[in-house]
């Protein structure tokens, strides 16, 4: 799960990425951490302290931290809502690429119609806590 804010733990990027596997008693190899960082576009960031990251970089580390757990389903809770426009597109491309290459299910919450069109195959519209429409994104959003 990746949230609106990265909520990285006050430690190095490497320690953040290794956190999930550590909870299961696994030690994540430095090579694996380097690969994950490379995949999210942050090669060589492993030793950096999270306080030195920009908002976009922090969100990329949060994504790498989640992927380190090798999830079958990726849950994204408005992962770009706290980012500037340039960072938003970068994260969107990253999400599309990762979901495509891992063939994984991704459920993402957004209030941005254009972003839903760019990223989602199917969309569910919720209003006041109730599901009001489900279907292919273009059909659902154009009907609204």
């Amino acid at each position, binding site marked *: *799960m990746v*949230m609106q*804010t990265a*909520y*990285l*733990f006050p430690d190095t990027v490497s320690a953040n990425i290794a*956190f*999930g596997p550590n*909870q*299961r008693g696994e030690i994540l190899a430095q090579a694996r951490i380097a690969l994950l960082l490379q995949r999210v576009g942050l090669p060589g960031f492993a030793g950096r302290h999270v306080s030195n990251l920009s908002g976009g970089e922090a969100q990329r580390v*949060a994504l790498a*931290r*989640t992927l380190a*757990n090798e999830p079958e389903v990726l*849950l994204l809770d408005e992962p770009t809502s706290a980012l500037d426009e340039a960072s938003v597109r970068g994260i969107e491309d990253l999400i599309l690429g990762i979901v495509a290459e891992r063939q994984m299910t991704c459920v993402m919450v957004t*209030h*941005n*119609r*254009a972003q839903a069109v760019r990223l989602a195959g199917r969309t569910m*519209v*919720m*209003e*006041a*806590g109730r599901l009001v429409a489900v279907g292919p994104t273009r059909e659902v*959003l154009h009907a*609204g």
Partner: protein
Amino acid sequence: MLAELQNSIGNDVLTGLAQAVGAIALCAAVVALCGWQSVHVEREAAVSMARGLVQMVLVGVVLALLLHGSLPIGSLILFMMTIAAAVTAARRLKGMDGALLVCFWSIAAGAGIIIAVMLATGSLRPEISMLVPVGSMIIANAMNACAQAIERFRAEILAHVGHIEAGLSLGAEPAVTVSPYLQSAVYASLLPRLDMMKSLGLVWIPGVMAGMVVSGASPVYAGVYQFIVVAMILAASGITGLVATVLMRSRAFSPAAQLTLRPAEAPAHGRQSAPLK
């Protein structure tokens, strides 16, 4: 018993009351000074002083009546004090289910264990005249440690909801996600007691030692005994802080490991929905 009470009321009491009037006058002057700087504590100070005086006079009367009471009576008095301390500390946890029980069990564990150890080792005699004053000091400090620990722990959790939920979402156990905040809360609750220990004899000479010296005990023994009391206060505070935060931690999460202790404006379920842009 009544003879004990009559014996204890004499010129000393009248002198003490006159001195209390002087102390109240001094406090009133300070309160007036605060009011001049728009710090208004008049009502609270008046109520606190009235309560404090009445409570201490009542304690004196009870001690005079029970001066030669047995261990069960002393234990009952300490038990009632523990309940009062728990009620006072629980006021800091308004809105939290089971706050009173958390405070009671943590203060009872901290103060109870230490008082029992002191009785077992003979460093505290089972006479009311000694058991109640020393026990009350330990209970009062356990109460402060409890209040400080739970208040700090709650504030830390509320300030780190995002980090805690990030940890939970990555598969961490609830205890792991809040462990840094538990540690800082227990440490914060111990700090005043650690400072008290460091400054013992340098900055202050506590009441127990002063009382023992006045009543003719060896000043060296009085000093050593005072150290024992302060060390026991530190130990009781540590146990209380640990038990309070561990009990509170178990109440901060649902059985499904969801964080239920949250800021009032951010309910766990049902986030306010914004319209599609």
